[in-house]
């Protein structure tokens, strides 16, 4: 972990994992906030029983070619809860999210070190089946990206890929997923028309329905509302709150209010480092790090 920036100076009482990263050597960061970081190595301030952690991210370092994008990031993602990642543009929050279902594998020259435990297994183990991994960890993207097919075909795409052929079963999946995504009533009479004819908000909910069609355990959302208007945004937010009853949700958002509205836990990232992770209420009411407070009060970012 030679790229670590945080010096452990105080032992956290609340976090069992932080003991594992007791030693981190300082390098020479150029940022003016260096001092603060060096004085406060700890950044996990939430107590989550290890049984309730769906994905346990530990000490992730990630490089795009020569450029390092993530530095020793930890993140416990709690089961059946919403975990939000916030931070200014380019802080690495999307990179972190995309590395969870290994979408970063698509990027040429991307290299990653560290552990992501999912059911006790490291996602970056060489013999992990990447396709079945992505079936279990679904993803919603920034811009709604339905396929240029009918609404029905969009949803049956995943199940068909995974070998379901029975018409009846497929129809049931279509209905269930659209219901879950709170879209069914709006599109029930036009399932066989093009998905591209839907409004942006409907398209994004269709994408969520599509992600649900393969029964994932975890749903990653990468700024799912940044391309939507306020009404469509609030629908997606309501939907996320519904979904956490059955699924684990991790969401990247550029909108602090969104995090405070829906997230149970929030991580604040800056320049590729996790600055502070705690329960959302705690973070927004009384952030521990001065930098978090400055960001939340709008003094930078």
């Amino acid at each position: 972990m030679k790229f670590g920036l945080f010096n452990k100076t105080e032992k956290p009482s609340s976090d069992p994992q932080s003991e594992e990263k007791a030693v981190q050597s300082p390098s020479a960061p150029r940022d003016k906030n260096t001092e603060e970081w060096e004085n406060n190595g700890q950044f996990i301030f939430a107590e989550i029983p290890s049984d309730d952690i769906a994905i346990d991210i530990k000490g992730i370092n990630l490089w795009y070619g020569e450029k390092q994008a993530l530095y020793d990031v930890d993140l416990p993602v709690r089961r059946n809860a919403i975990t939000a990642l916030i931070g200014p543009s380019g802080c690495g929050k999307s990179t972190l999210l995309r590395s969870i279902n290994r979408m970063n594998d698509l990027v040429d020259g991307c290299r990653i070190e560290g552990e992501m435990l999912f059911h006790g297994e490291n996602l970056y183990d060489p013999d992990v089946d990447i396709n079945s991994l992505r079936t279990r960890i679904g993803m919603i993207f920034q811009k709604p990206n339905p396929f240029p097919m009918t609404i029905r075909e969009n949803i049956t795409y995943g199940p068909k890929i995974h070998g379901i052929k029975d018409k009846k079963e497929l129809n049931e999946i279509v209905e269930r997923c659209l219901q879950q995504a709170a879209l069914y009533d709006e599109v029930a009479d036009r399932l066989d028309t093009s998905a591209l004819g839907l409004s942006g908000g409907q398209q994004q909910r269709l994408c969520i329905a599509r992600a649900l069609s393969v029964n994932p355990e975890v749903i990653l959302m990468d700024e799912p509302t940044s391309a939507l208007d306020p009404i469509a945004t609030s629908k997606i937010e309501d939907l996320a709150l519904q979904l956490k009853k059955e699924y684990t949700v991790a969401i990247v958002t550029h909108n602090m209010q969104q995090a405070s509205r829906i997230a149970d836990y929030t991580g604040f990232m800056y320049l590729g480092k996790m600055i502070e992770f705690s329960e959302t209420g705690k973070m927004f009411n009384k952030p521990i790090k001065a930098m978090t407070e400055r960001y939340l009060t709008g003094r930078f970012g």
Partner: protein
Amino acid sequence: MKTVLTAVASVAILIVFLIIVFTLSSSWDAIGDVGILDFLFGTQWSPSSGAYGAAAIILGTLLVTLGAIAFAIPLGIGAAIYISEVANPKARNTLKLVCEIFAGIPSVVYGFFGLLVLLPLLQDIFQDQLVYSQSWLAGSILLGIMALPTVISVAEDAIHSVPQSYREASLAMGATRWETTIKVIVPAAISGITAAIILGIGRAIGETMAVMMVTGNATIFPDPIWNIFSLISTITGILALEVPEASVGDLHYSSLFLLAIVLMVMVLVINLASRIIIKRMKRKLGVEPPRQAIFFKIGLIPSQGSFGDWISEHKGIITAAFVYLCMLVFVWMMASLFTGDLTALIVSVVVTAVVFAVQKVFEKIDSTVKQQVAHGGLTVIMVVVILILIFIIGYILMNGLSAIDWEFLTGVPTNGGRDGGIGPAIVGTLELMAGTALISLPLGIFTGVYLAEYAKDTKLTKLIREAIDLLNGTPSIVFGLFGLAFFVRVLDFGVSMVAGWFVLAFMIMPVIIRTTEEALTAVPHDLREASMAMGASKWRTIVRVILPAAMGGVMTGTILSLGRAAGETAPIMFVAAVSSSTAPYADSIFDSVMALPFHLYYLATHVVGSDAMQYGTATVLLVIVLGMFAIATIIRNHYNKKVKW
């Protein structure tokens, strides 16, 4: 300045107008005396007995093109998918460049290769089936290879332009890359892929030299109609062969012009179709109309009602059944050329059953393995495409380099072309290129400037653009015919260098215009504003700021199109080129000239025992054409590196 540029740009309209007027007026006698219907559907083409029924030629053109595209689709689309989806992104540009080289090889060199390598090879393989060495099959294979670069580059562009978000969405659901490609990317790009195929057909149908050298040009119907080993004829081949024999003004001459009009109409229809499809693709990536089975669209089957429901319910099975039926018939057709009809039927049933079984097994296997198999297949296709290219170029260079010495490069052909050198042909080609450049550069670049900088959305502009598109799609042999009717006869230049200049210049003008316009529009608007803000006039801004900034693109396009002009045979064979003459070097621009591509064609088809000279000539031609291609590529890369907006 604007008036001058408008006038120059309107030259394109004038050229199209002249081409239409002179081909039409030259074919007037045939339209009157033979009659359109008798001409189109008459089965007998025999100039000596005065019979001008072109049905066999028109059908032959379609059949050869069909065969070519059947050859080019699997290779071309496969290679396009490989380049866009399987290959390392870094290798993409290199692979595209390699495919462009295919397009750079002159038609006559392909024909020469076909004559020397392909025909003997086919004769070895199908010695019982081939009566003559030439065949429909040979023509189709050669044309298929020539259509490959068009198919690959257009299809690759279409596949590559499918938004990355589709790939991400599919992969994020646990689909493999292959499943993503075949179930999301290819369907999304299907319009562009279709356009690629149609443009490939357009390229193949207008091709002259290669196809006339290997098909036998026999105006007969294949018997049976699917007999790919039969001799066959194409419109372009018949034109190239018979125009020099026909005497001006008689019915034969005029019928040939009518044949050219039929060809132009065919090409026009093809180009229109591709334009409509490309437009649809652009619309589709915006909002796609709901997909319905084709039956509903054309109203064959009511979309409501039990039968319509039944159809849409079983869409997949019906399509599959149709595909297998086609395959059954096709395999039977091909097999029946080798054995009796009954054996052929058994063979076709067995083959279809095997394919069906293989497909069923393939469906069952693990999707990761499936991906490996599919990607392996695509890799094989890519390798085959590259090997074909290397083989063609390598074979000619290997045999040709030994023939080249100082005497060969500078000497005059003797003994009917069997000995001596090709000095006059090299000089003639260079002279033709120089004159072509002299005419086409000002016309092309000024028109490009007009379109990029001055043209408003007026009727005139639209007309100019239409004219340029038309010129771009016109088969090269039609330019030759037009040159013969206009420059050689009406303007009375005779068969001369200057007639060749104009014909070649008109032919390459559309490419120069288009690349100039593209390069100019790519220059950022800030630069224009910066210059004008200092009080420079618009024209001064263009000359001093915009054109220099766009120089890379303009030069690349110009050199590429001049390279194409250097290799063209069909347009100059009636108007400028001669095989050899008492005075091989032209004294004035009104003399006929020798040219490398025509010399190669003449040696390969008329002079027995000139093999070494043929290889040498082909090598020199290849070196010139590919050399210009290399220079253009270097310039493009240089400017791409230097100028980044």
